[in-house]
Structures are given as structure tokens and as C-alpha cells.
């Protein structure tokens, strides 16, 4: 069984992202499933960034530490990650960085500098990259030095291009050397390079040259490595996409007509991906069926998030499947619009990519801190639908379901995801994005409302027939209103409308299938039940297996629907749980809070992580073991 873990680090703007993607593609081509994610600073150039990836035969649900190989494209990487490579692993680095002192590295965070210096000093090592390399070596890590400058000169010669213009291949040099050392045949690397730079022939040529030079060099110095066996996923049409990509894809598949957004990490890449595909040519057959041959999505960058949500509301009123995408700070600004969408019963989908807060916080780091904020967003009693996706596949389907639910229940739907899922890339099979599972349901949308149309007609399920603005005389308002949408302050009419809206949320719980509410993975009779939501899913599933190896039988309750909360279902499942441990990436234990509020179950322990890094499988294991040892709250803190 292959389980390959890699970190590729270097300065922001130094090609870390593309090196990571080439690695991902090489390994996918080689037949593996991959999971890879980028950690980076809120900065354009120079700060430390790294790509963290894992390749397995089955689906990796989690990144992990330590890794098998570290590619360090600068001194900072060596000094940041030297404690994260397993004994027997390799580090690929440029010997030229050895002399670099910790203190001389400008971008390096001062607290990290202090920690590293202390550690190296305590080991009696110099506080330089060399010290860190020695520390690794002493722990059985193999040092693979690459004279990058000399190699670049070679690339320049081969590619017949000046050094300056080939200097960008430095990441390819390092990467190819590392992959080759790990047993990936050069052919895969070269194919991955071609895929990565598709359409840019010159760039491909230069990078392929670099790859060859690197491979040659390491072969010469370290000999032919053992070949990594091929993975089982060869000869297939697959997809490699990030969470951001998959949500954009889901929206387009769902028929989104309008996307408003204001740039913000980590949501912008969703908008960007959607914009790349905002104009789709339909094949003739389909064109005939739908009556147009070019599907155009109006994607508008608005002046702020207030505008984004209100424009999305406007487009939804006019009949478009309408959405906006943002993260915490933007969502805070959308609160008022959310409350309007509740009161006025407007079907919009708000994709909320959580990142580390409060406030501007750490814009490019992950977290699950917006759970309660999103549920209780918007003043007044403003119930809404909140769904959290556990992984890439769910992200895709949920993006579609969110539109269905928005229209069926005439309610804002908040689709909760996080920075980790946003940037994490996963390999997917065709069957995983199975359109035959996808239904487009627009609920009570009526094309011909007719005379005397009442937008807010009181009905048993609380849902009124919905006409598009432009198809009937009607009135829509955020003021309390009578059935015809006219403002009223009548106490009785008011109460009626409050209860109408409440009924809709009851209906949500009635109508949604269990798998969209809460799902129990593993043996119902396990000794311990882990409860979580969102992107921890894969991590917890992986950790469950590891726990089993340690003799702990755990199962996992994934809460999918956070609002309205499926209290009966969850209470029912938890009623037979022997021990309940929540796992979440926030400080206050927001899910634990919600659980107790809705079911009365107070988790026996909480495992939390708040340092802005994704949680790793071994941390869940560690957390659970400590919890079983009696810890009330376990804080895990891995990652750089």
C-alpha cells in the first residue's frame, strides 16, 4: 500500500502552487488518488508558502505529518519544516542555503524564529539552515542537495534562453528531483508538466528540460531509485479539482444565472473559476431543447458585499438562480441582506468559505469559526438553511442542492465550506460527479401567475407560489406584510407571517433525506462517537481506521444540515452513543454548543484546533486518546 506524503515549500510567487500541481498531476497520472493543499500567507510575494500532499491507492481523507519528502526551495522552508520529515524520508534542498541564519530571513515570523533558534540551540546546532539540515540528518532523514544555480545554468544552455528567463524553472528542478527520488518515472513528470502549462509550448519545453536535467543529476549522484508501483486508477477519465472549482462547477450545473461577488480569500477562486466558464456553448441537440445555444452566466464583481448580496437578491427575484460567494468578513456585511432574504422569502445561495477569524484574522488560513455566526446571522428571528459539505464530492452536489432547496423553500441557503477545502485538490472519478443523481427542482416557481397573484399567500406548508418579478403585478418587501406583499403592522397578520416562515423550516426537516441531515459512519455500536461537520470528514474517517489499529472503536456522526437542526435524528443517533467527542476547528466549541442546545447532549470531550491549519488524522487520534483519558478539551496544534 502506497501512502506518500510530501511538502514542497518556498517563497510565495516562487512557483510553489504550480510545483504542487505538477506533483499532484504526476501522481494522478501514475494511478493514485491524491489530496493536496496549499498553505500560504496573505501576501503576494516572498512570504513562506508550501504545498502539502498525499497520494494513496484509496482516497486520502487527510493530510498528515510527518511527510516522506520535503522539497525546500529556500532556507526558510528548511527552517520551517525540518521537524516534519519522518526518519528515512528525504529532504531536497539547495546546499547554497546552508549558511543562511535564521535571523537573516526577513519574511520569517518572529515567533517562529525564536522557537527554531531555541530548538537548534538546545540541540547544540547552529541557528542556520545547516543546523536544521543536521537536525534532520541526525534523525535519519536523507539529505538530497541540489546545486540549483549550476543546474539553472544548464537549463539555460539547453533551452537556449537567458538565465533570467529560465529561473522560474527552479521549482521544476527541485520537484522533478524529488519525485524521481520517490520513484516516479520521468515520463509522468513530463506529462504532468505539459498538462500544467497546456498551451504554453515554450514554458513546457523549458520545464521539461529542467525536469530532465534534475533527474539526470540525482540519478548520477544517488543512483537509480526503486520505481514506485503504479496506482490502481489508470486508464480512466478523471478530474483533479479544488473545492473552489467544484462549487463553481456545481453552480453552473445547477443552472446559476447570476453570481455577484466581491473578491475575498478564499472565495475569489471560486468566482474566478466560474468566470472562466461563464459562457458555455451548448451542443446543437441541447440548444434546440432549451432554445438558446450559448449559456451565459452574469458574473459581476460588485463594489462590496452589501451590493453582492442585494444584487443576488434582485436577480433571484427576477427568476435567476442566483448566488454570491464570500468568506467571514464579507458574510458579516451580508447579515442585513440575509435577514431581508428571510423576511422576503428570496431563494439565494450564499457560499461561505470560512477562514481564520475573528475580523481580518488570518485571511489565507482555515477554520470553522463561522458556524454559529452563520446560523444566527441577520437580526430578528431569521431562520435559514445552513448546510456544510464534508468533502469535494459533497461540495459539488451541495452546490446544486443548495439551489434546489433555496427555490423549494424560498429561503436563503448558506453553503458552509472552508479555506482548506477551497484550496485542497482532490482526484475524482467520473462516477463521483454523477449527473444522474442530480435533479433540478425549482419548487413552486410559476411561469404564469395570472391575475390577483399573491406573493405571500398563506399556505399549509408555509410556501407560496412564486412568480418572477416582471411576470405579475406584485409587491416584495422586507417590511412585515400581508399576503399581497403590502406592508402591515397589524398584530395578527404579523403573527401569521412569522408562523408561515416557521412552517417552512419545519418542512425542510420533513422533506430532506437523512443523508442530507446527518450521517453516521462506522459501527453504530462503537465505543466512542466523534461528531463533526464540514471538511474534517475525511480526516476523521482516516483517523477512525488509525484508532481501530490502536484498539479504539470509533464511529463518526457527520452533521450535514446545521440549520434547521435535525434534532430528532441527531438525538436519536446520539442516544446510543457511549461517549461523545466533538471535533471542530474553532475555539468555543460551536458545534458542541449547538448539539447541547438542540439535543441536550453535552459532549464528553471536545477536540479543537484554532491555529489556522487544517486538522490532521494523527491529531484526531491524539485528541480522542486524550479525551478517552479524561481530558475535557484537547487543543491540537500541528502544522506550520
Amino acid at each position, binding site marked *: 500500500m502506497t501512502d506518500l506524503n510530501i511538502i514542497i515549500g518556498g517563497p510565495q510567487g516562487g512557483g510553489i502552487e504550480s510545483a504542487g500541481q505538477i506533483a499532484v*498531476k504526476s501522481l*494522478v497520472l501514475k494511478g493514485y488518488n491524491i489530496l493536496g493543499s496549499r498553505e500560504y500567507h496573505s501576501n503576494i510575494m516572498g512570504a513562506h508558502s508550501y504545498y502539502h500532499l498525499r497520494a494513496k491507492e484509496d482516497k486520502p481523507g487527510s493530510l498528515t505529518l510527518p511527510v516522506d519528502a520535503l522539497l525546500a526551495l529556500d532556507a526558510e522552508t528548511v527552517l520551517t519544516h525540518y521537524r516534519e520529515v519522518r526518519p528515512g524520508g528525504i529532504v531536497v534542498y539547495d546546499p547554497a542555503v546552508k549558511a543562511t541564519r535564521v535571523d537573516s530571513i526577513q519574511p520569517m515570523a518572529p515567533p517562529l524564529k525564536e522557537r527554531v533558534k531555541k530548538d537548534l540551540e538546545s540541540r547544540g546546532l547552529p541557528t542556520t539552515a545547516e543546523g536544521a539540515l543536521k537536525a534532520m540528518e541526525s534523525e535519519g532523514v536523507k539529505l538530497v542537495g541540489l546545486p540549483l544555480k549550476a543546474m539553472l545554468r544548464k537549463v539555460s544552455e539547453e533551452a537556449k534562453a537567458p538565465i533570467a528567463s529560465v529561473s522560474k524553472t527552479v521549482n521544476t528542478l527541485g520537484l522533478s528531483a524529488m519525485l524521481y527520488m520517490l520513484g516516479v518515472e520521468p515520463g509522468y513528470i513530463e506529462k504532468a508538466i505539459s498538462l500544467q502549462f497546456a498551451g504554453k509550448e515554450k514554458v513546457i519545453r523549458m520545464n521539461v528540460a529542467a525536469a530532465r536535467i534534475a533527474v539526470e543529476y540525482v540519478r548520477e549522484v544517488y543512483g537509480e531509485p526503486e520505481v514506485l508501483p503504479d496506482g490502481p486508477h489508470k486508464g*480512466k*477519465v*478523471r*478530474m483533479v479539482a479544488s473545492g473552489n*472549482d467544484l462549487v463553481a*462547477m456545481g453552480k*453552473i450545473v*445547477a*443552472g446559476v*444565472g*447570476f453570481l455577484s461577488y466581491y473578491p475575498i480569500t478564499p472565495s475569489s477562486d471560486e468566482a474566478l473559476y466560474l468566470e472562466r466558464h*461563464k*459562457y458555455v456553448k*451548448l451542443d446543437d441537440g*441541447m440548444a434546440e*431543447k*432549451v*432554445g*438558446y*445555444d*450559448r*449559456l*451565459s452566466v*452574469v458574473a*459581476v464583481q*460588485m*463594489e462590496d458585499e*452589501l*451590493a453582492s448580496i*442585494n444584487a*443576488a437578491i*434582485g*436577480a433571484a*427575484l*427576477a*427568476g*435567476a*438562480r*442566483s448566488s454570491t460567494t464570500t468568506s467571514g468578513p464579507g458574510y458579516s456585511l451580508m447579515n*442585513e441582506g440575509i435577514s*431581508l432574504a428571510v423576511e422576503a422569502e428570496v431563494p439565494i445561495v450564499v457560499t461561505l468559505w470560512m477562514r481564520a477569524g475573528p475580523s481580518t484574522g488570518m485571511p489565507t488560513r482555515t477554520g470553522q469559526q463561522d458556524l454559529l455566526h452563520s446560523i444566527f446571522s441577520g437580526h430578528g428571528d431569521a431562520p435559514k438553511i445552513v448546510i456544510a459539505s464534508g468533502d469535494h464530492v459533497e461540495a459539488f452536489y451541495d452546490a446544486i442542492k443548495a439551489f434546489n432547496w433555496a427555490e423549494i423553500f424560498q429561503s436563503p441557503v448558506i453553503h458552509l465550506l472552508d479555506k482548506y477545502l477551497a484550496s485542497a485538490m482532490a482526484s475524482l472519478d467520473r462516477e463521483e*460527479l454523477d*449527473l444522474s443523481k*442530480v*435533479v*433540478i427542482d*425549482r419548487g413552486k416557481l410559476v411561469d404564469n401567475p395570472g391575475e390577483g397573484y399573491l406573493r405571500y399567500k398563506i399556505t399549509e406548508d408555509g410556501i407560496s407560489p412564486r412568480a418572477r*418579478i*416582471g*411576470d405579475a*403585478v*406584485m*409587491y*416584495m*418587501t*422586507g417590511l412585515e406584510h400581508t399576503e399581497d406583499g*403590502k*406592508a402591515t403592522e397589524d398584530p395578527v397578520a404579523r403573527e401569521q407571517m412569522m408562523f408561515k416562515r416557521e412552517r417552512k423550516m419545519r418542512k425542510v426537516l420533513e422533506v430532506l433525506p437523512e443523508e442530507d441531515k446527518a450521517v453516521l459512519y462506522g459501527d453504530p455500536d462503537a465505543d466512542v462517537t466523534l461528531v463533526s461537520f464540514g471538511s474534517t470528514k475525511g480526516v476523521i474517517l482516516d483517523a477512525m481506521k488509525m484508532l481501530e489499529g490502536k484498539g479504539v472503536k470509533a464511529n463518526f456522526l457527520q452533521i450535514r444540515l446545521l440549520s434547521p437542526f435535525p434534532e430528532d435524528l441527531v438525538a436519536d443517533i446520539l442516544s446510543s452513543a457511549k461517549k461523545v467527542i466533538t471535533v471542530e476547528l474553532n475555539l468555543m466549541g460551536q458545534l458542541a454548543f449547538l448539539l447541547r442546545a438542540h439535543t441536550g447532549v453535552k459532549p464528553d470531550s471536545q477536540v479543537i484546533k484554532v491555529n489556522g491549519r487544517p486538522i490532521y488524522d494523527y491529531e484526531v487520534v491524539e485528541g480522542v486518546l486524550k479525551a478517552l483519558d479524561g481530558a475535557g478539551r484537547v487543543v491540537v496544534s500541528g502544522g506550520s
Partner: protein
Amino acid sequence: MARSWLEYKAPAWVQWCPGCGDFGILNAIYRAVAELDIPPERLVVVGGIGCSGRTTFYVKGSNAHALHGRAIPMATGIKLARPELTVIVAGGDGDLLGIGGGHFVALGRRNVDITVILFDNAVYGLTKGQAAPTLPAWIKTKALTSPNIHDNVNPVLLAFSAGYTFVARGYAYHTSQLKELIKTAVRHKGASFIDVLQPCPTYNNVMTNKWYEERIYYVGEDYDPIIRTREDFKEKLPAIMEKLLEFGDRIPLGILYWDQTKDSFEERLEKIMPGYMQAPPGTRRISVDGRPIVDPFEVFKDRVIVT
């Protein structure tokens, strides 16, 4: 003129104070849309929050009463989803220039084909008379505890600076002139703006009907606000700027600036996505027999890898 303005009178009690300038604006809107023969269900009045914003309940249309300050983005969403509709924004000076100031500017940059009617009473009517952005400094209207120490913003100058392609000023009690301005603004393809001076007899005890009557005048026949070419712009600009800046002892009414050279946002969308107008997001089909019309493995080829 197929329709009577009465067809646009919604069955609702009009809640404004006696003598409020809003009545004049409402009448002008009734008459303008009647003369333009817009079917009520194709007419979208998007209102802000304020006395003015209530217009959405009084004009028979397919209307939306937005949040305070957010009528413009909501109208933008509606218009871009269904570009065939007539979209009019009715908002107060607090609404459009205070809390909504950022959107007001952004609409100019977008030049979406929306007509913005500013109910300019220089006070926050519905919240009981506080100073609005158009109240000149040192005026102390009755609800203020001390004189206003904010300068007033000049709405027509701001609209021009922001990029509105049609900028006019009307007076609430001059219903027929205002009606004509509204008609022209609605016909203009792009972001149009009408600053309507609107006495608020209840709270603005300084800028009264009398105050306005002493100052307002209509720009004459000789005044040419129309830009047909870039050269026009250079040539006519000094006179236009003079009018845009004039607000004091004399206040010009009429069309002050009209740039006919620019594409609307919808037209620009159509340029980058030909076909958009024919199958706009609001009304196009999104499924066939309840199934999606695009397949991810066909459309998102950039993410597909054949192993």
C-alpha cells in the same frame, strides 16, 4: 398613450404628510409610465427605505422594496437578470447618497440601464427629520439640536463624476415637467439620474416650496447638454460644469448632462457574451426534464485528466 395613469395607481393608502412633495413625484411617475405605455407587470419600481421608498407600494408594478440604501444593487440584479424590464429606483437622499453612497457611485461606473429618481428633501423624513447629505451647512431645521455642520453634497455633480450618462434635475411640484424628464430618463439606455427637489413640509422648514420657487429655473433652449461624440464632450463641458455646479441663489432644472456615446452595461455584457440578451438569466431554461443541461466532464475540460 394606450394607458391611463390610473392603471398604475395601486390600491393602497398613500401615507405621506399633506403637502409632501412626494405626491408630485408619484404623479409624475404615474404619468410617465402611462405615456411610455409600460405594462405594469413589466415595470419594476425598486424602493429604498424612507418616506420616498414607499413609492413601491403606490405604483402598480412588479415592485421590490429594498433595504435602506440598497435599492441600486437590488435593481442591478433585477435588471441584469431580466434586461427587458423597465427598472426605476425611487429613493431618498439619505438612502441613495448617505447609506447607499457607495452603490450610487458604482452604478455610474456600470451604466446599467436603470433610472434613479432621488427624492431630495434634504432631511431624513421617515426617521423624523435628521439632516440628510443634501442639507447645506449651518442650516438648522426643526429636528436638529444644533446647526448642521456637514456640507451638502451636490447630487448632480456626484452623478456626473460617477459616470451616469443622463443627469437631470426636477422639482416635485412641477409634475408635467418632471414627467417629461422621467420619460426621457427611462428611454435613455444607461444609468440615468434625476435629482428631484422635494419639499418636506413636515421637517424641512427651511427649504420650503417658497425657498425653491425663489431659486429654481429651467435651463433654456440654448443650453445643450447632449454629448454625441468625444469632441462634443470637450466643447460642451464648460457650460455643463457650470450648470452642474450651480446650486444656491439659482438652481437649474432640466436635463443637465446627457452622454449618448456609451454602451449600457447590458450591451457590454452582450458584447463579451453574445446571446446573453436573448436568453437572460431570469427567464432562460436551466433544465430539461428536471436534469441539468451541462455535463462537468464536457465543460470543465481544464480539470480533466486522462490517466
